[in-house]
């Protein structure tokens, strides 16, 4: 037998002699590792799902909204002059490099009436580019064309939820409905799109030009038309950060902000949003993992307890080994390997259990879990580390035994 294999074989005999006890000892580790694996995989799954949601909206998307950003700091100067205008959008389209499509939008709440159905709804006026910017898919009918936009046609495209509410199973294409004081015609219904924020299912889109005829869009002191937000895409995703910076400095100039003033708008790229969110979820996942790791700690104390008992029981064996020439280091490694061996086995079983658990969670369809190699490697190495840490004291105890007294013990 190879020299380095001998301590392993000895450890195996030690573990295998007390099968039930060994199993109970590692149960704490098994449960801890399984909890870590399944919780982390659920967290990772949630993260992956949110990112894929954002990507379905278009990772090349940048949105500009009025007012300072509301996360990552204190929102400041609400209600002051924080206004985005259609001219801002035009300036961006003309002056910022790598900008592909730009769509100013204006939303307002309007009364909708179809037959007996009556609802108050948020209506958004957009240019036709908006469809491409937001990756909107039309389930049936069409989105409005440039021509309809140019002449301010009173046509609407409904989100799938809105269509369901207003028309039920009936075909809405070509149907008329009342919107505020105007009559509009439905020309298209959007495909349902699962998204966590700003799902288009609840939206009603109308050409911005038609919107401007129907409602009085506010203007700034300079006479520029106010918009609710500006959505745009970049031609090169790599340049998203550059574009965000350029837009910020352009808008600061246009809004005549001094160097000490806060931005009165916020520019958010989807990439940034994705990274902010995945960071937040990552923190949650880590927290869950840390709670699960406490049970690993408890398991480790169990291992230490059993190893102390095992050393006590095998005092005579230790004495024999010492009489045969075993040095302190030999005894010490033997027990340390045995402890690490136990927790490694616990770690591996825990990984398998955790994997099964996260598979079961996945199969409910609520969330897709992702078991990544780094979690597995982390869990297994942590459990071996626990074995080494909590095995250290018992092993050290064993190695310090006096051989004569050890031989005399029963």
């Amino acid at each position, binding site marked *: 037998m190879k*020299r380095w294999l001998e301590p392993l074989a000895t450890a195996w005999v030690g573990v295998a002699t007390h099968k039930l006890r060994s199993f109970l000892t590692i149960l704490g580790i098994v449960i801890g590792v399984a909890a870590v694996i399944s919780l982390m995989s659920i967290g990772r799954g949630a993260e992956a799902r949110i990112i894929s949601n954002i990507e379905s909206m278009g990772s090349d998307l940048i949105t500009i909204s009025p007012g300072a950003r509301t996360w990552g700091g204190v929102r400041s100067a609400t209600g002051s002059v924080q206004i985005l205008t259609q001219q801002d959008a035009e300036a961006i389209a003309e002056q910022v490099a790598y900008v592909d499509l730009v769509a100013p939008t204006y939303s307002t709440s309007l009364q909708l009436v179809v037959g007996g159905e009556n609802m108050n709804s948020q209506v958004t006026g957009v240019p036709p580019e908006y469809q491409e910017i937001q990756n909107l898919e039309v389930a049936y009918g069409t989105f409005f064309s440039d021509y309809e936009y140019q002449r301010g046609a009173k046509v609407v495209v409904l989100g799938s939820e809105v269509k369901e509410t207003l028309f039920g199973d009936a075909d809405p294409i070509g149907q008329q409905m009342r919107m505020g004081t105007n009559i509009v015609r439905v020309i298209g219904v959007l495909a349902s799109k699962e998204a966590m924020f700003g799902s288009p299912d609840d939206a009603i889109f109308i050409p911005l030009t038609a919107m401007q005829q129907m409602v009085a869009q506010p203007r700034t002191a300079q006479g520029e038309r106010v918009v609710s937000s500006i959505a745009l895409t970049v031609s090169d995703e790599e340049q998203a950060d550059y574009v965000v910076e350029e837009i910020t400095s352009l808008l600061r100039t246009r809004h005549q902000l001094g160097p000490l003033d806060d931005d009165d708008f916020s520019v958010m790229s989807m990439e940034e949003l994705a990274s902010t969110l995945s960071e937040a979820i990552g923190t949650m996942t880590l927290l869950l993992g840390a709670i699960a790791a406490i049970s690993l700690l408890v398991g480790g104390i169990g291992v230490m307890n059993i190893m102390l008992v095992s050393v006590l029981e095998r005092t005579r064996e230790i004495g024999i080994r010492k009489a045969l*020439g*075993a*040095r302190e280091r030999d005894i010490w490694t033997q027990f340390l390997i045995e402890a690490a061996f136990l927790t490694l086995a616990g770690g591996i079983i825990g990984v398998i259990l955790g994997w099964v658990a996260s598979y079961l969670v996945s199969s409910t369809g609520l969330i897709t879990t992702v078991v990544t190699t780094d979690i597995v490697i982390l869990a297994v190495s942590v459990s071996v580390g626990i074995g080494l840490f909590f095995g250290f004291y018992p092993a050290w105890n064993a190695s310090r035994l006096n051989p004569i007294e050890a*031989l005399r013990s029963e």
Partner: protein
Amino acid sequence: MIKLQDMTKVYPMGKRELTVLRGISLVIEKGELVAIMGPSGSGKSTMLNLIGCLDKPTSGNYYLEDREVSRLSSDELAQIRGQKIGFIFQTFNLLPRLSALANVELGMRYAGGVDRQRAMEALTSVGLSDRANHRPTELSGGEQQRVAIARAIAKKPPLILADEPTGNLDSRSGEEIISILTSLHAEQGITLLMVTHNANIAHHCQRIIHLMDGQIESEEKV
């Protein structure tokens, strides 16, 4: 081979001290077969433990193969035990979970490495080659002690120490063990030190040392 100079051993017993050995001086030549006799509490086992490097003397010197070993660290002593000394105990001290062969191999493990062929040869030399895969619980007392002898000799140490090797055996098995030990001594020239109560067994040896109250009372040549 062995030279003890005025060796004493004192155990602290709470506030008092228990003096077990009161100045032992002794020379044992290479290849000798020596019996140590004496009543209980005379210090036989303590002396054997000191000679076996399982313990350190309180004072005095101990030269093993001309090397002063009484002040070495516990790891250095362990190394000497592994390489120079084979132990045979009254209670056999085999590991119950291991087969006879594995027990013999264990004796070589801390002495430079396991050699299965030599372990088998050792078992054969005590007449147990057909029991190599039996566990100690499946063997008789005499057979267990033969395994222990095989374990002691497998690493070919220059010195073998036996602490009442026949104390737990019936007289027939005991005689078998003694004849194995004496023939090992005769054939391989091993230095053998044996503690015994049994005067008949002691008379198989070349020299008998009588201990009394931690001192050498008398010596006789057989």
